[in-house]
């Protein structure tokens, strides 16, 4: 088969885009190698409470797919892993080296019982919970994690640090929270019923030969540090959109109750600031982040469902609700849920007398307004994952000025690129919501399947 190219696909990124592409290809009978940097799959969609405009529970509509990926006979899943190098063969195939970071847990022995996570005595801030909740040092991203196998965060594991200190002949190190390294912990190893903790585990590298690649590396939100006028990440009750999703999510740190991070009180006034860093070429990014108008309407609506006598305000430049049922959804937030929309920018947010003062303009009434808020949600700009440029470079895929992947042709070849057999999907190309990402991922998968079918057809019939 080497002359006509192989028919195994590599999918990079296991958010909803990568999952969709992987399942479409795998369900057509072709093998898929799915690589994900995080310990478990699902991407940002796993962090969301409910989706717009249907208000479906995000976890509930995604879990069947993540579970299917986990059990699929045609999918080889590499989580906690990164692409290390890529070599293109004369045959057109790609030889890809995948580095799996040490998890210090033997996943073949681990049954996913969760005792280790229960008994681990150390907690650190969880990135998955956007800094609002904590997680153990041995952890899975969520209770629905696929695969449901934990990893140890070596940087914060006091036992591993102690072990490494002793091996290097160093004095015991102390972490940022002041916890000294200790050889006395190892609670996870002592209590694991299958002896799956492996302190000696090293990174491993596997090599895969693939005939097509789908890049679905996804997005991130602009760090709040980039917005000093809105507190720059210093004000605890100024949170970003994903953090507010975690506050709304039943699986989140507050079990779905909207409670502000500083003191756990239920906020009576919540202000949402759209275009926080978007459409701001001087201080943020020049483009529209596209998803915020809808998710802010959704979040304000859900806040009103949780706290009916609370008040939600939304500052907006204009409402861009292009999409089936989207305008109606925003209208619903305004008319049925009573969310107050103020047309104007917020110039400053500062703390005063236990409130967050949100200073802005209401350009419809021509007034400067100041709203004393209990919680502020910044709809921060949608940016590509920091690693996008590096990963794209490995495959010869270009990125634009904003760091998003560049397709072969924005209009006529939206999922293709210059490199043969490499296809692109999802938020790594630019701001996109879930339906668009899923559609584009299926498009990329169709391109892969078309290529694979041509390769199958080109093979000489096997002699009997």
């Amino acid at each position: 088969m080497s002359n006509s190219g192989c028919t195994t696909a590599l999918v990079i990124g296991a958010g909803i885009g990568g999952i969709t592409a992987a399942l479409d290809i795998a369900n057509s009978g072709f093998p898929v190698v799915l690589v994900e940097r995080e310990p478990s799959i699902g991407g940002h969609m796993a962090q969301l409470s409910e989706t717009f405009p249907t208000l479906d529970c995000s976890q509930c509509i995604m879990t069947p797919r993540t579970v299917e990926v986990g059990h699929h006979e045609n999918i080889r899943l590499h989580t906690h892993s990164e692409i290390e190098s890529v070599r293109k063969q004369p045959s057109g195939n790609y030889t890809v080296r995948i580095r799996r970071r040490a998890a210090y847990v033997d996943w073949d022995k681990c049954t996913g019982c969760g005792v280790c996570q229960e008994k681990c005595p150390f907690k650190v801030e969880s990135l998955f919970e956007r800094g609002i909740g904590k997680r153990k040092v041995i952890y899975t991203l969520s209770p629905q994690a696929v695969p449901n196998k934990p990893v140890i965060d070596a940087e914060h594991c006091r036992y591993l640090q102690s072990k490494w200190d002793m091996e290097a002949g160093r004095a015991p190190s102390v972490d940022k929270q002041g916890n000294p390294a200790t050889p006395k912990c190892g609670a996870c190893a002592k209590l694991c019923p299958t002896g799956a903790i492996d302190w000696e585990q090293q990174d491993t590298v596997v090599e895969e030969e693939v005939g097509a690649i789908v890049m679905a590396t996804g997005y991130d939100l602009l760090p709040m540090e980039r917005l000093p006028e809105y507190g720059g990440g210093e004000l605890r009750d100024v949170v970003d959109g994903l953090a507010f999703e975690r506050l709304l999510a039943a699986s989140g740190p507050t079990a779905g109750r909207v409670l502000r991070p500083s003191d756990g009180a239920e906020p009576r006034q919540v202000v949402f600031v759209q275009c926080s860093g978007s459409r701001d070429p001087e201080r943020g990014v020049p483009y529209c982040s596209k998803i915020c108008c809808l998710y802010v309407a959704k979040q304000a609506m859900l806040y009103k469902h949780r706290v009916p006598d609370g008040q939600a305000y939304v500052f907006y430049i204009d409402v861009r609700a292009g999409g089936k049922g989207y305008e109606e959804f925003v209208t619903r937030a305004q008319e049925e849920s009573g969310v107050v929309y103020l047309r104007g920018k917020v110039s400053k947010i500062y703390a005063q007398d236990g409130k967050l003062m949100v200073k802005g303009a209401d350009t419809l009434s021509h007034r400067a307004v100041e709203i004393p808020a209990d919680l502020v949600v910044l709809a921060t700009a949608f940016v590509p994952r920091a690693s996008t440029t590096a990963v794209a470079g490995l495959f010869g895929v270009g990125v634009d000025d904003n760091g998003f992947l560049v397709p072969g042709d924005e209009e006529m070849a939206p999922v293709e690129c210059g490199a043969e057999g490499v296809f692109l999907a999802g938020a790594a190309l630019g701001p996109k919501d879930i339906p668009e990402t899923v559609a584009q991922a299926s498009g990329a998968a169709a391109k892969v399947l078309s290529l694979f079918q041509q390769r199958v057809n080109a093979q000489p019939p096997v002699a009997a």
Partner: protein
Amino acid sequence: MTSAERIYSYFPGCTLATTAVDYDVSGRAVAAALGLELREVPDWNCCGAAFPLNAENVMNFIAPARALIAAQRSGHDLATLCAVCFHALKRSDSFLRTHPEAADRLNAFVTEGDFDGRVTVRHLLGILRDDLGWEVVSRHVAAPLQGLRAAPYYGCLLLRPEAEMELDNPEAPRVLHDLLQSLGAEPVGFARQAECCGSTLLVSAPGANQRLSAAVIESARAAGAMIVVTACPLCKFNLDRAQEGRPAAEQLPVAYFTQVMAAAFGLAEHAGPAFPLRAAA
């Protein structure tokens, strides 16, 4: 580099020559103490006071351009103290550099020489930070301002627009904070530290400037400040005026950063009426 080599052209500006002489005098004194030689631009005129918004009319740039051209001959950076002059000169310089056709037209009207864009307009705060460094400033402190909770008030013109002024981030400025720290004082950031005092509204919206200045004072007071420190004579004028009529004990003194430096350097005669500070509240 020896201190003798730190020579700057100096543009005092009208306000520092009239109602804010204490800013000028204290500025020259602390500069001399630090080994910075300020050579006053000969035959200077008003900077124009406002950055011309009508760029079509090149005549609007003649006032600032004359100062820039005069400084060109010296070959040194042009130092300023007044935030308004710094703003007008710096932005005019930036405009003329990026609009050569406007500079050409302007040059036809100015007889002293041609604008060639070779002078860098500086503010003394930037010179202290970038040319000397805070450690050097610290070394000249004779009477550290221990326990002085000072509110660094940046106002609007000193920092904005960031890309042209090139001094500090207007949303999270540090330069006055760092200066105060180097003097041994305790900088207390406050919500309105980089908001406008309202001075430009004096004519167009009478009363608004009083409200805005009062809000700045209240914001600094709420942060626990004992003194407000500014780099702008208009801000000082407005902040003082907003407190007129209040009992002395309720007034928050406002001082130029150069006066605070003078106090810390032991140059008491230039420290102004705020020093020695009344007993801490």
